[in-house]
């Protein structure tokens, strides 16, 4: 069983459109949406939720007013400026480190577990999917990503799936690191802009740092052919295979509006290109 994650560095380059198409094209697979704080894959795969679980993670300090003698120790020790001057806790700033709770001489601080989100096992027209919703303004997205991946893997093992297709998140921080660890291939989707190149370069460095095989696709390549060439040169230099180039295509947005993947929606150019990208990716990943 092989795991493929689609990432991008820069947001909005087309990760989810490509992941959803792979979901349609791959045979015998499980999907995992690891963009847990702005998940969109469900909009194209329209999952039917079969199982729903709470994601409990991290703690937040709560001060018991009756026990607190306002000695000020917690306020002095807290490095996240989470203790207000009236000795209430700013729960948005609280990092959950529990330093204050351990130190309070009156035992007046309770650390309460956070309900940090939900995660789901669902059925889609393409097979099982594990996805999640991080609570608004919550932390620990990396842990939730790991949880989604663990469950996707268990399902894949149980049904003997050949592929786990993972939708990643933008950036290079904790959810991205959690989504790429141990995968067979990270596919970076970028766009021919200076920002796209800059951000792809950083996320490629992250894959190298964690020793994850990496390949790249340029989306909307025809919006700037010079930049496309620059990205290709950069990839050549860094020995990152560019396995496909997709043109700007309004059909992709039309497909999205109809909650469909582009490969279902049309048999046009974009659809053909993505099919070729998948065939190549599949072959290269299987040949290690």
């Amino acid at each position, binding site marked *: 069983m092989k795991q493929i994650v689609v990432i*991008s*560095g*820069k*947001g*909005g*380059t087309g990760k*989810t459109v490509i992941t959803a198409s792979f979901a349609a094209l791959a045979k015998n697979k499980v999907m995992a949406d690891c963009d*847990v*704080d*702005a998940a*969109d894959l469900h*909009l194209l795969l329209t999952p039917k939720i079969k199982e729903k679980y709470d994601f409990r993670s991290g*703690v937040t300090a709560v001060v018991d007013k009756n026990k607190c003698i306002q000695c000020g120790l917690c306020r002095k*020790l807290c*490095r996240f400026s989470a203790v207000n001057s009236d000795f209430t806790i700013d729960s*948005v700033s609280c*990092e*959950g*480190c*529990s*330093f204050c709770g*351990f*130190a309070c001489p009156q035992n007046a601080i309770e650390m309460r577990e956070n309900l940090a989100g939900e995660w789901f096992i669902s059925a889609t027209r393409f097979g099982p999917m594990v996805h999640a919703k*991080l609570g*608004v*303004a*919550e932390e620990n*997205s*990396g842990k939730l990503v790991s949880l989604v991946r663990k469950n996707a893997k268990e399902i894949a093992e149980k049904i003997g799936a050949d592929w786990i297709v993972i939708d990643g*998140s*933008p*950036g*290079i*921080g*904790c*959810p*991205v*690191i959690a989504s790429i660890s141990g995968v067979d291939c990270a596919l970076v989707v970028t*766009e*021919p*802009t*200076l*920002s*796209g190149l*800059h*951000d792809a370069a*950083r*996320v490629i*460095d*992250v894959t190298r*740092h*964690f020793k994850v095989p990496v390949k790249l696709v340029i989306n909307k390549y025809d*919006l*700037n052919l010079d*930049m496309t060439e620059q990205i290709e040169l950069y990839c050549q230099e860094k020995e990152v295979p560019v396995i496909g180039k997709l043109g700007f295509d*309004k059909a992709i*947005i039309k497909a*999205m*509006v109809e*909650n469909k993947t582009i490969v279902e929606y049309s048999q046009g150019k974009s659809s053909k290109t993505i099919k070729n990208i998948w065939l190549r990716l599949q072959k290269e990943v299987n040949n290690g």
Partner: protein
Amino acid sequence: MIISVASGKGGTGKTTIATSFALSIKNAQILDCDVEEPNAHIFIKPEIQEKSPVFIPVPQIDKTKCDGCGKCRQVCVYNALAVLKNDVLVFSDLCHGCGACAYFCPQKAIKEVDKEIGIVEIGIKHDKYGGNLEFIHGKLNIGQAMSPPLIREVKKHINPTRINIIDAPPGTSCPVIESIKGSDFCILVTEPTPFGLNDLILAVEVLRKLKIPYGVVINRSDLGDKKTDAYCEKEKILVLMTIPFKKEIASIYSQGIPIVEVIPKYIEDFQKMFRRITDGKFS
């Protein structure tokens, strides 16, 4: 005054709006808090005047003093310390730098040492009218998971005498909250697609929770469908500006050029937007 620019969904045009907005108004300062993938510098092209590394404190064990009691592990909720028979292992990538281990160590065997997580760069961009735009951004080191401490460092440079424009990262989780909290107003940039709308709704939830006033900019407004307009109308959300999709704009963006430098009409639009925000006529 602090005005942040956020989005939920990535790639909707946050940096386009933040940089062109900052270039269109007087006495502005731009702080790029998307420290994982900072891009504002590509458009602003500031003259960098100062570079400083940012550290978080992580524990270092003095083995001659440590008696292996295990107190440090007990107080570390991040599992950044493992106590073995004759040794304590520190996993500094898991450490949040709270300082509890050093404080509670009965043997005073833990010293906190600096670990670099990224850098802050400060620069300036002179405009042709003799004014200047102050520029600050953070850049997270490759392989680092935690961006909030670096975002806090960037935000220390907020200058209350200026109009501070914050370019926030995408999403709705901790780095976004760290970037936008304390803002007087937040501009949410979206696109009228199902993805854009889904993530806009999440971003609106965040702003309601943080009690920050906000308005929406609809980018590539002629692509997609009409559901975003309908949502904003129903929720009585102020639409500050709409920008149509044009190959010209996409091409300017791709080269790292702010739209206000090529299409001057937008300077006026951004100034108008600024007046609407500062007039306080928002819901």
